[in-house]
């Protein structure tokens, strides 16, 4: 039934639990003092797909950057498996291979072939020598249906392919958490639907916690165990929804009754925040 509790071989996923505890982020506290994140608390279970939904510019990415260690926080703390990543005393987490970001527009190195991109992490960390890394990388790319583009450069393949390569590159580091920042935003809706199924397939094979930012409610409910709908700036959870549609899921879910009910249940909350964000934008403009 609940796939989140079970790893690839049926064993429970024991790592990758994130606790966001009363996190506040104020940009430029001395000057403009823009509050991006306001006393935000959220628990993400190990091996869970947690979808963060909110209008553009609401501060979701700030939260993701805090977990990744790219930005600092003002107060509160973030824990990964009971280990403090960042807190008021140490506001900026150390970036590391246990938390890998898949960026909005992709960050594959254009000067490396797809395979060289994929093996970058393990080789950098000295976990594998180049030959071992190539073997593992080729196996994982084959698993994700990417064997044909191993020796192409990222610029030579479609954006959907690039995203898949990037997810494989992230998984090569054996991370506890995958941080996805609207990775499918730039894709057309047909490619997007294929990417969703591909992501789930990869997820079922390599259980990791997924922290997935999006502004697309359907995407969120289709993929997530949990959907956190965020308020517009400053950002904090407005409503947290447990999606009780069992995994593994495929595209038939989209037309199921339960899926539609969940959309209806949450649509108002999302719409309300979008409207607020829009009006705030109007005022600023």
């Amino acid at each position, binding site marked *: 039934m609940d796939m989140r509790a079970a790893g690839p071989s049926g064993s429970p996923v024991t790592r990758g639990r994130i606790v966001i505890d009363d996190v506040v982020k104020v940009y430029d506290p001395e000057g403009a003092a823009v509050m991006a994140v306001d006393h935000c608390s959220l628990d993400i279970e190990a091996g869970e797909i947690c979808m963060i939904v909110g209008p553009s510019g609401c501060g979701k990415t700030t939260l993701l950057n805090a977990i*990744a260690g*790219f930005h600092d926080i003002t107060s509160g703390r973030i824990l990964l498996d009971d280990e403090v990543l960042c807190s008021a005393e140490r506001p900026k987490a150390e970036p590391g291979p246990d938390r890998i*970001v898949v960026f909005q527009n992709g*960050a594959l*190195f254009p*000067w490396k072939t797809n395979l060289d991109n994929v093996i*970058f992490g393990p080789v950098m*960390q000295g976990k594998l020598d180049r030959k071992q890394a190539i073997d593992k990388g080729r196996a994982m790319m084959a698993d994700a249906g990417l064997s044909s583009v191993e020796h192409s450069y990222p610029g030579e393949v479609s954006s959907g392919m690039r995203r898949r390569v990037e997810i494989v590159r992230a998984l090569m580091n054996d991370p506890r958490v995958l941080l996805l920042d609207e990775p499918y935003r730039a894709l057309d809706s047909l490619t997007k639907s294929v990417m969703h199924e591909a992501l789930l397939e990869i997820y079922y094979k390599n259980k990791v916690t997924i922290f997935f930012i999006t502004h697309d409610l359907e995407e969120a409910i289709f993929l997530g165990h949990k959907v956190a709908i965020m308020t517009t700036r400053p950002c904090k959870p407005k409503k947290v929804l447990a999606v009780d549609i069992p995994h593994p899921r495929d595209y038939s879910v989209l037309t199921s009754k339960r899926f539609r009910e969940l959309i209806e249940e949450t649509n108002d909350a999302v719409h309300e925040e979008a409207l607020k964000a829009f009006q705030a934008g109007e005022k600023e403009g």
Partner: protein
Amino acid sequence: MAKKLGKMVASSLFWRGVASIIVFLVLWEIGSRSKEWMAPEMFAPLKSLLGALGFKKDYLPWIGTVPAPSGVLKAWVEVIGSAGYWQSAYMSFFRVMSGFFAAMLVGIPFGLALAVSRTANGIFFPTFEVLRPIPPLAWVPASIIFWPTQELSITFVTFLGAFYTIVINVLGGARSIDVRYFQAAQSMGSSSWDIFRRIILPGTLPSIVVGSAVGMGITWEVVVAAEMISGGGSQAAGTGGGLGFFIWNSYVGGSYEQIVVGMISIGVAGYFSSELLRWLGKYVTPWLRVR
């Protein structure tokens, strides 16, 4: 290779290029021979019109004084066997290459240092920015004074021509590398040295290629002018002073055809140096070839 050449010859673009060069040469020939064909009586109205406009009456303005392509070709055939011409071409080429490679050797690390280190930037950038607007040719007298040989002073001026362009391109290129690449590399456990070697260097490479191509063009401009001003180096006049001196010497000696021979030689040499760089550039940035 042969296939590629065959394809090129078959394309309309190629023939359009050939046709345009031929038309250009024919018009030039006709224009420079205007003194001959304008002699008959029937061109009297044209002559008086030219006179009324304030030009010389006997030939078409400007173009009528330029040596004809046929004459240039003849002059070329005459000098092409002479050691002096080749010596000149070789000297200029040698100066361009030494100046250019010195500029790469100094400019690339310097540009990278300015981009990577705030300290280096703080110390060197202001001085660099004050020196940069000084045209390389303004350095000719000074460099003749402080370099021991004529050869070194010309090479130094050539070096300056490429140096600023290369540094500015490297600096701009390194600065504009997307911050996500750094973040990704950092997440995946790269050390600062790894980031420099695997992100900054390859990320700057396209700008290095562009900077070199522009710099190469400037070195040819500079070397010719420097040779004219400095008298072409230590060699005996007319032989081996570089193409710039070859042109100047032809002018002084009244051999106008040879001036054009020198000019076209520079054009051809510049074209081949740029082509060589483009080829090298494609070779070192294979990921850009696919776009």
